[in-house]
């Protein structure tokens, strides 16, 4: 595994390249979730990348601008910039792996960004694997800000009852600091504008959607894209990972079922 900074000098990204340990034809670009979900998923994707590298798959994990170890403040992040970051990372992986087929594995908002980046036509993923994609940004934002208040309440010895009242009263409350990660007004607006109708696949590559059968938004979006004759398959996938929970040794940081399902989806 090689830690590095890559990309243009004006917008460098931190990444970790897992060199394949034997011959193969595949490479995987992991499009991480954002904010607390990235922290929660970090260990799982690291273990997944190790397994893939051992099986002969090259892997690049990276942090979007303004997230993780990449340069930039929390509030520098926005969907458009992050979409470009996916393409920058794809180019880096292409540069390192030559002719290998590159699969994108995106989780949560990372899956959404993968769809947006693939649609831009600037890069050429062979296949998209979308795990619990966010297709309804407004609903996602609501869930996150409610989760933020829940996290505050759990963390303080005696929580302030005003937080919950503020949450109910003001639709913008806590949208600028979700789970302690700064969110710019631009990013907030972009999230609210993100809707299934605005998120379209292309016919240039196959897409696999892994989502809980109860995730109606993702299921309906996939059905809508199928109706548009896009090459997309949906696969019901339930797992115990709570995306916004804190990483904790006792709450299945690397759920086996998730690891195996993702490995299977990549190798199929």
């Amino acid at each position, binding site marked *: 595994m090689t830690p590095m900074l890559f990309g243009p000098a004006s917008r460098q990204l931190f990444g970790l390249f897992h060199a394949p340990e034997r011959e193969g034809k595949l490479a995987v670009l992991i499009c991480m979730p954002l904010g607390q979900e990235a922290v929660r998923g970090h260990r799982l994707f690291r273990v997944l990348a190790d397994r893939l590298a051992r099986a002969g798959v090259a892997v690049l994990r990276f942090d979007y601008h303004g997230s993780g170890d990449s340069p930039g403040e929390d509030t520098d992040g926005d969907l458009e910039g992050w979409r470009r970051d996916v393409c920058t990372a794809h180019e880096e992986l292409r540069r390192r792996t030559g002719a290998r087929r590159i699969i994108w594995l995106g989780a949560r908002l990372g899956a959404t960004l993968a769809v947006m980046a693939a649609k831009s036509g600037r890069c050429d993923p062979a296949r998209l694997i979308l795990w619990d994609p966010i297709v309804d940004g407004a609903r996602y934002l609501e869930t996150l800000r409610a989760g933020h208040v829940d996290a505050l*309440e759990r963390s303080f010895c005696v929580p302030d009852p005003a937080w919950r009242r503020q949450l109910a009263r003001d639709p913008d409350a806590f949208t600028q600091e979700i789970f302690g*990660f700064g969110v710019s007004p631009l990013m907030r607006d972009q999230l609210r504008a993100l809707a299934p109708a605005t998120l379209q696949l292309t016919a240039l590559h196959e897409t696999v959607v892994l989502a809980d059968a109860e995730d109606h938004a993702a299921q309906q979006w996939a059905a809508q894209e199928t109706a548009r004759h896009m090459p997309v398959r949906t696969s019901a996938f339930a797992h115990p990972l709570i995306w916004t929970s804190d*990483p904790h040794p006792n709450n299945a940081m690397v759920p086996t079922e998730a690891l195996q399902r993702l490995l299977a989806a990549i190798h199929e």
Partner: protein
Amino acid sequence: MSDYKETPVQFGPDGSLIGIITTPAEGPLAPVACLMLNMGANHRIGPRRINVKLAREMAGRGISCIRMDLAGLGDSGPASGSEHFLTQAVLDLQAAMNLIQTMLGVRRFIVIGLCSGATNGLSLAVADPRVVGLLMFDGYAFPGRRAQLERQFRRALAAPTNPAVIGKTARWLQRKFSAKAAAAAAPHIFEPDPPEVTAAVFRRSMTQVAERNVAVLLFYTGTMHVTDRKRDQLGPFAKEAFTQRFEYRFIGEIDHSLTSMESQRIFMEVVCDWALRVVQGAGVTSTPHAAAATRSGGQLASGRPAVALQRDPVL
């Protein structure tokens, strides 16, 4: 242009430790560098990315930092030997110090340990004389009977008008009477030491650290309690001679995980203020030190003087 420069590094005996070194973008370096490590199972960026934010803030004030994953955590590889995990943490942190010494020529260090990181930081401070400062954030706590009763009383008082407290009480009862719930919420990977063993380790280690004149800040939050009267989190140690040498802060408005941006701002202000005082107190009057202080104008972002009296603010 940013105030910092960052360099990803791989280090340790077999190159399996991963970290990021943050240095000031220009000008000389402070003669003391800062080590940041994992809090619990979080990877090196820390909860809410606080280690990244703090490292860049510190670099803006001339202090270089490394944020790293200990063996087996985050992106670092597993330990190759079979050392006890505390011993391994010390070895990993010493490898980071050796790296900084080689790369930057800095030979003295501050350790910032959040939660479980405080235990690792204390072990390092005991083992290695290069450590001149130790910050323990919601680390060891020994609240006495009065503090515990007051905590329970305040929660009971809040319950009728505060649904969140009812939820917390319900979860507490669940943990109390369900072994499964208790195990799921347990903060320890392994069986924790009995309280008397933890207290004995704390006394012995802190005495050694005090004798070496290591600057220590014991920093506690509103997760631990609502208020603090007389260094309550130190309980029976509050009046011991060795703890009198240490700084103690309790800030009830911030929480253990630094969930709000305001918590992060306050945390960074307190830590930067303390770190700058440790740098200045390290007894180095060379150009790098002076330059580091000059670059920040001797002031923190809040406008408070970088050199302040030790104090025990109780909120």
